[in-house]
C-alpha cells in the first residue's frame, strides 16, 4: 500500500500533529508545507507542534473504504490554531455531533498486510465521552 520510505518520511508529522507556521503572514498550515502558499519565497516557514485540540466542523461515517475497521468516522476538524484537518475519530458514530470538542490520540491506522509494517498516526476522540 504505502512504500516504506514514503511512510517513514512523514512519521514525525503523523505521530504528532506538527504543522507549519509562516512568520511572515502569521498563518498556520497542516499538513506541513515546503513553502508558504501565500507568501511563497517571501515567507518564513517553520515547523510548529499543534495543540491537538479543536472542534468538529463536519463528519461522515464511511462504510465503503479500505480501512480494516468498517464503518469508521471521518471528521473535518478545526484545531484551536484555526487550521483545519481531516482525520479519523476513534469513537462510535452515535457519539459525534457537529461542534463537539475533540482531542488528539495515538492510534493504529492500518498495516501493510500481515507481514508488512504497521501504520500509526493521530486520531481524535471527544473530550467528554
Amino acid at each position: 500500500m504505502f512504500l516504506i520510505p514514503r511512510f517513514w518520511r512523514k512519521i514525525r508529522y503523523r505521530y504528532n500533529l506538527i504543522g507549519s507556521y509562516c512568520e511572515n503572514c502569521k498563518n498556520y498550515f497542516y499538513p506541513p508545507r515546503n513553502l508558504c502558499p501565500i507568501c511563497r519565497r517571501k515567507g518564513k516557514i517553520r515547523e510548529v507542534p499543534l495543540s491537538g485540540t479543536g472542534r468538529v466542523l463536519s463528519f461522515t461515517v464511511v462504510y465503503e473504504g479500505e480501512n480494516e475497521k468498517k464503518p469508521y468516522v471521518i471528521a473535518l476538524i478545526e484545531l484551536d490554531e484555526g487550521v483545519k484537518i481531516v482525520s479519523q475519530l476513534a469513537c462510535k458514530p452515535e457519539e459525534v455531533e457537529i461542534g463537539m470538542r475533540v482531542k488528539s490520540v495515538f492510534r493504529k491506522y492500518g498495516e501493510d498486510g500481515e507481514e508488512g509494517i504497521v501504520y500509526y498516526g493521530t486520531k481524535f476522540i471527544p473530550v467528554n465521552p
Partner: protein
Amino acid sequence: MIGIVSYGTYIPRYRISVDEIARIWGEHAETIKSGLGILEKSVPDLDEDTATISVEAAREAINRCKINPKDIGAVFVGSESHPYAVKPTATIVGEALGIGNEYFCADLEFACKAGTAAIQICYAMVKADMIKYGLAIGADTAQAKPADALEYSASAGGVALIIGKSPIAEIEATYSFTSDTPDFWRRDLQRYPSHGGRFTGLPAYFRHTISAARGLMEKYGYKPGDFDFAVFHQPNAKFPIRAARMLGIDTKKIEQGLVVRLIGNTYSASSLMGLAAVLDVAKPDQRILLVSFGSGAGSDAFSLRVTDRIEEFPRNPSVWDKISSKEYIDYGLYLKHRGMIE
C-alpha cells in the same frame, strides 16, 4: 534520591464481563467470579495495540511532570504483546514523544514482569549518572485462547513511569528473585500461550513473589509492618490476598491497588497499574511494597517511599476514575476487537 518522577496510565474503554464469557461457554459465572475475584476485563479497541497504549500512558506521564522529552535518556518497553516480534515498540514510543535520537533503548520480555525490569534498568542508569531521566513502560494487549481459563482475565492496559532524581516516590531498594521455572510460556509463532494449570501457583507465583519480598526485607531490614501499601502482580484477585497473608501483611493494605477485579490482568502493566492506583492516594512518607511476578519465572520487589513532592503532583484522572469510565461489549465484538475473527 532516585525514584519515580512521574507516572501515566492508559486503560482501553471497552469491557467484557465474566458473565458474558461464561454465557458463551456454558460455564457457571458465579463460580468463576468468586473463584477468580474478577467481574470484568478491559478490551482494546480495533485500532489500539501495545504501542498505542504505551504512547498514551507515556504522554500522560510527561504532561504531568512537564519535563522536556529530550531529557529522557532511555526508553524500555516491557510487554508480551509487542506489535512486532522484531522491531521495537520502544522506538515508536520514542518518536511519538519527540525524544530525539539520543537515547538508550530496547524492548523487554519477561512475561508480566518486563515493566518492573524496565524500572530497575532505568534506576541503575540514573544512579550511574548515565541518563537524567528514564522511561519505563509495562503494557500489554494480552491474548487468551477461547474457552481457556485465562480468557476471563487476560486484558489490556499500560503504565509509564519516568525514573529520575527529585522523585515523588523514592526507590529505596529493589531486589529480584529469579529461577528457570516453566509455569506459563508461548513458543515462537504460536498464537496463544500455554500454562501448567495449578503448577502456576505455589512453585511459580508464590515461590517467587514471597522469596523476592522476603529477600528485599531481609537484605534491607524491613518488617511487614513498615509498609502502608502492598501491591502484588494480579493474575486474579485471590493470589495477591494470599501472598499478603503469607508475608504477614494486613490484607487491607492491598485493596487500593487491587484493580484486577474490574479490568482483569493487564500482564506487563498489572502490578504497575496497582502501584499507580496507590500513588493516586498515597501521602508523603508512606511506604509501598511492590512485588511483580513474571512467568518463566521471576519477581522484582521494590520498597518505595513517597516524598513531599507528591502533594503538588497532578494525580487526576485517577486509575479508579479511568476504571469506571467504560463501555460493555458482547463476545462477538470481543472476538472482532481481539482480531480473532475478520
